[in-house]
Every structure is written in C-alpha cells, then in structure tokens.
C-alpha cells in the first residue's frame, strides 16, 4: 500500500472526482483523513501499490494535485525521548522501546494532515513536511 495526499482546489470540491476514480479503476482506496470545505481541501488515502501510478495519473488528469507525501520528519538528534507526543497520536504510531527510547513508526503515521504531535514537542524535533506537489500540466494551464 502507498499513501497519497490529494489536494482539491476551490473549484474542484463540488465534483465527485474521488468517487469517479474509485469506480472507474475499481480501487479499494482507504481514506485515512480528510479535511474538505467549500474552499478546497485534502484527502490522505491509501492505495494498493500495483495501481498507484494509474490512480495518481487519473487524479492529475482531472486537474487535482497528488503527492506521495513524506509525512512527518523526526530529528533524532534533537529528540530527547520525553514522549510528550505518544498519547496525542491518534494512530498509535509512537511508542517507547525497552531502553525508554521514543520511536516513530513512519508506516503508521498519517502525516501532515494530522500533525497533532508537532506543536507538542518541547525539543521541536518533529516537523510536518508540507511537500510541494509536482506541478501538473492541467493546473499550469489554468493559472496562465
């Protein structure tokens, strides 16, 4: 499974783009988090690896920006393993090892759409990566 971050513009939110793609490509897409309102929004979803490329292209053809986000970056030099973040994480991606070291499970983390741990880190060791999506041709045309 691969995680993708789908971003909608203001003029795309009224269209059932995600549903169309799910039906057209028969993708079992798991939605991990979604924040959408009339001004736009983003969906973090999980898509099977074998169909990933097709799905990403399908969204992009419809003018929607898609990134495969690097989610949360933890600076292990800065982290002093207090563990303030642990109980905040909604998907239990953070745990304590036997030697009391705090560990991040990047596979479980739902990333920048959640970011609940970021401002709770006293060591400021956690960064949410707002990745720049690869500009897709459809968007570029619209802007010009």
């Amino acid at each position, binding site marked *: 499974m691969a995680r993708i971050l789908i971003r909608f513009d203001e003029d795309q939110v009224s269209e059932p783009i995600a549903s169309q793609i799910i039906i057209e490509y028969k993708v079992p897409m798991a939605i991990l988090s979604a924040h959408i309102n009339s001004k736009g929004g983003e969906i973090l979803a999980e898509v099977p690896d074998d169909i990933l490329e097709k799905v990403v292209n399908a969204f992009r053809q419809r003018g929607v920006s898609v990134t495969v986000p690097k989610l949360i970056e933890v600076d292990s030099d800065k982290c002093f393993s207090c563990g303030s973040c642990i*109980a905040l994480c909604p998907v239990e991606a953070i745990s304590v090892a036997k030697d*009391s070291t705090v560990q991040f499970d990047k596979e479980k983390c739902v990333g920048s759409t959640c970011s609940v741990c970021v401002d709770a880190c006293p060591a400021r060791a956690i960064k949410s990566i707002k990745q720049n999506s690869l500009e897709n041709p459809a968007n570029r045309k619209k802007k010009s």
Partner: protein
Amino acid sequence: MKKLVESSGVEVAFKEVDVVTTGTFGAMCSSGAVVNLGHSDPPIKIEKAWINDVDVCHPGAAVDLFIGATNMSEKLPFEYGGGHVIQDLVAGQEVELRATSYGTDCYPRTSLKTTLTKDDLNQFYLLNFRNCYQRYNCAVNSSDKTIYTYMSKLLPRFRNATYSGAGELNPLMNDPDYETMGMGTRIFLGGGQGYIIGEGTQHSPKNLNGTLMVKGDAKRMSPEFLQGAAFTGYGTSLYVGLGVPIPILNEGLAKKTAVQDKDILTDIVDYSVPRRDRPKFGQVSYKELKSGSITVNGKKIRVSSLSSLKIAKKVSQTLKSWIDEGTFLLTSPVERLPTNTAFKPMRQTEEIPFVVSVMHPAVTCTEKEEIQAIAKRIVTKSVNHIVVVDEAGKLIGIVTSWDVTRAMAEGKTALADIESHNVVTAKPDEPLEIASKRMAQNNISALPVIDIERKVLGIITAEDVSKLLGR
C-alpha cells in the same frame, strides 16, 4: 536496590549496597545561569542586555548577567529562550550579546555589541532556584477545547493526560527525610558536577513536594543533559539532568531507596480550570503513569511523560560510573534541608471577581414551547436571554429578545427556527475577566454558566459585568 530489597530483604541490601544513584531529566523552569562578561573598554554598566535576542538582565553590577530559562527571544518568542541560550553556550556555540546603558562617569559606554563563547566568560554558573520536584501532577483537560500549558498540549474532554518526573528514580523520593542530602551535597548536574545549595523555592517536603536549589560550573556541563525546550502557548524552559548519590548509611535508607513506582501517588488535575486550586480526579501511581494509560472517571485515557526516563536513567548510570571510577566523591551536607515546611499561597490584598460572584438564575424554556410564550416570559421577567434546556436542566440552546423580534417580523412560530445551538458558555469558577473577554470576542451579551455535565447553573450578562466594574 529495589530488586535486592524485594528478594533478599533490607538487612542484606544494607550490607551489600554502599550507594544508590538517582536521576531525573525534566523541564525545570526555575533554572538559569549567572555569567560574568569581564569589562569592555571603555567600560559599561549594563542596564539592558540581550543574548541571541533573549533579555538576560538582572539588577546587579556592571557586567554580571542572569540568563533566565523562561525568558523568551524577542524575535522568536515561544520557540527560543533563555534555556536555549544556556544550551548553546554549554555546547560551545557563539552567541550574540547586545547591551545598552545610560552612561556614568565611571562607566561611560552606552551601547555594546559583541559575540561570545563560554570560553570568553569569567564565570558561567548554572544557578537553579527550584529543581528536581519530588513528584508532579498528572494533567488532564475537561473542557471542550485544546489547551496549551506548561504540562504541554492537553486535548479536550480527557482525550490525553500528561505527567512529569522519574518516579522511583527521582532523587528526593529515595531520601524523603533528607538524611543524606543537604547544603553542600555534591551532585550530578547537567552532565557536570554541582552542589545542592539549599532547599528549592516552594519546597514542600511535608506533602512529598520537595525541591532543591542547586548550582554548578556550566562550562563543564554537557548539552545532552541541559536542553532548551519550547512549550507552545506557554513559553520556553530548560530540561535539566540532575542526579543525587545516596549513601546507604543505615537500614532505613536501604528501605527508603527501595521505593517503587507503584507506591508513589500523584493527583490527576484538571488544567482547564484557570485557578490556583484546580479540580482533582483522584490519584494515580507512577507505575500506572509509566504504563501509558490511566483511568479517569471510569474512562481509560492515554498518558504521556514530559520528562525523559531514558535520560534520567543515563544520569543515574553516569553518576554510578563516576563513583566507580573515583572521579566523583561523595560529600556529607554541611546543613540539612527543612523537612517540615509547606508551600503557602500568595497573600492577596485585592480579590478578583469570579463568574460565580455575579451569576444569577437563568430564565429557561424547553424546546417544546412556542415563541409566543417565550416572548411573554421575556417581558414578565424583563430579561433579554432565555436559555433552552432539556428535562435534566442541561443546556440545549439560547434565544434572545432579538431572535424573538425577528421571528415575529418574519412570521416564524417554531422555536427550533430561531434558537442558537452553538452556545458560548462560562464556568462558575472562571475569573470574570476571562468570561467577559469571551463575550466581547464573540460579540454577544450573555453567557449561560454550566457545570461539567452541561447543566445550567445560571447566567451572566454584559450588564452584570459593567455594573461590577462601575462599582
């Protein structure tokens, strides 16, 4: 020691163990460092000074400064502060000093700018007024919004809890009667060696909330054990690594140092109530806290530590290895610390008003009532706000005289069409100032006062507030 006492008993443990080392690594806000800069030419009597844009002044002589851990950078407040300045200096980094003065005949210079490292300082001493709390509260938030406190981020409606402290590894928990530690006791401090110089401020040994005042040569400390920290919405601090060796002088100390997390209890405190005495939800042991989840009001909630157990263990192990190597010598205290004092609240000559002191009974209605009846009640009771409640008296909505007037104008008759469900509320024990700010921010003129179960206790209006202020 804990295992040995359990398996072989106190007598054997006393014979076999010479010293128990302890350790803790947590945010200790009442920390700071004294630095002496040496004189500039021409000399300056510093009146105001900043290091890396953090205010570091104190009312002393010409070139002595105090870097307070919680003073924040003027350019990067809440992200960088005195704690970070101390860490950067300890790490050998260069910092920028700016200073200004009024100029005197003996100290003519009025401004100064230079860069410094710890090697340029004559003295660089960590001087912490209150460190090493014996134990600390477990924090929760019963309110409807996320709050940011010195106990870190607390999610609404008990969705998480935080705690601090090393529990059974805490120095004071292992010598609760202060038999071996006192003024002059050599300790592990910030990766170097330091001393206990007395009781910490707010020292409250009677109820197991003892603290220490400590100092040590920061030039010999390590940034691993002294780390600047930033708490969103609260400010900056300094994480301090502190460990005390406890010589096992008698069987009593063997028994005391066998203290276990399961025996150390602390209060679960509601930090959403902005008062000195906050509501408590019972007690919890450090064993439960370290397990990652606790039970509050019958509900299981996840709990996180703010202090680092990993580094606390490293403190006690490092101290042990120093003692083994002979590079750290134990000292006996020259004066004992008080064991019978308690921490007093502030004497206040001016009382501030709370919501409860101005609230009055709310005029209510149920959702079944018609607008006509509500309009009548507004007139007979001469109020502007009617609170909509259910059978149990719990808040459902609010209707104002304006809502009723508009309903009349638009020919509406159903209460459901005009009542507001998104009601901004107040709690009885909130300071009135906070509640009145909330009214202004939301551009409204009344707040129903509710308890934790949303039961309506009364109402406060903008009129009540202005009457009180006009007195």
